[in-house]
């Protein structure tokens, strides 16, 4: 237990906990909501939490001048934007075919 309380004293732990909580909130959003767009929003929140993790480790890690964490985060932002675009295009296309964006109603392959 002492290592746990000692862990809380460092600023890095604070950022990592915030990132973990945000990740869990994003995951809950992706699993709990009906609408397809909210699932995509949940995924974006998860990616953002991972970015926060990367930047926090870059800042408090051993070699910040190597810029590894920052580069990884920048590429992650770019890839997340691309994935959001394609994902939302897919949702719009599904809406055109099935006239609904609720994931529970898209069950034509059921049974």
């Amino acid at each position, binding site marked *: 237990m002492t290592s746990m309380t000692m862990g809380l004293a460092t600023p890095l732990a604070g950022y990592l906990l915030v990132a973990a909580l945000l*990740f869990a909130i994003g995951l809950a*959003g992706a699993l709990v909501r*009906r609408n397809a*767009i909210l699932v995509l929003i949940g995924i974006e929140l998860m990616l*953002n939490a991972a970015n926060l993790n990367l*930047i926090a480790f870059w800042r408090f890690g051993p070699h910040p001048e190597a810029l590894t964490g*920052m580069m990884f985060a920048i590429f992650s932002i770019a890839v997340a*934007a691309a994935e959001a675009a394609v994902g939302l295009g897919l949702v719009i*296309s599904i809406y055109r075919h099935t006239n609904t964006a609720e994931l529970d109603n898209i069950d034509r392959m059921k049974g």
Partner: protein
Amino acid sequence: MSPIFYLLAALTLAGGLATVLLKHLVHAALAVTVAFAGLALLFLQLDAQFAGFAQILVYIGAVAILIVFAILLTHGADLPKEGVFSKTWLVGLIIAAGVFAVLGWAVLESVSAIPQQNTMPAVTVRDIGNALLDRYVLPLEIVALLLTAATIGAVIVAMHEKERPK
């Protein structure tokens, strides 16, 4: 840890929670924008200036607008009859709580082993530019190809299909 960190963390988490809990989709999209802004401010507090401004430019300036356009194009503004949470919401919540428990335990148990440093050499945009074309040129080129493919793919997927002559 400074009070500013607590304020920004509270703002970000409040935005995230509001996104998941709000019934109206457009309100949820605006709440996630608040979460993105809070994260950008956290990046700025961590001395990652470029990442913070890129976050505002890309996420708030493009992804949030994309989400809002998609909500409008799929008529998401009308509330569904059966409610906004799916039938299996409890399982999802338990899974998310489990994931947070594991991550939190990992953070608290092991963080004392990482060397902490509080002074950092100033990172200029010039360093980032040099790194992008020096050590990270391969990811840069691949991301360029990926973005091109994503643009073309998104347009093809969302395009109106031509009416076939009957």
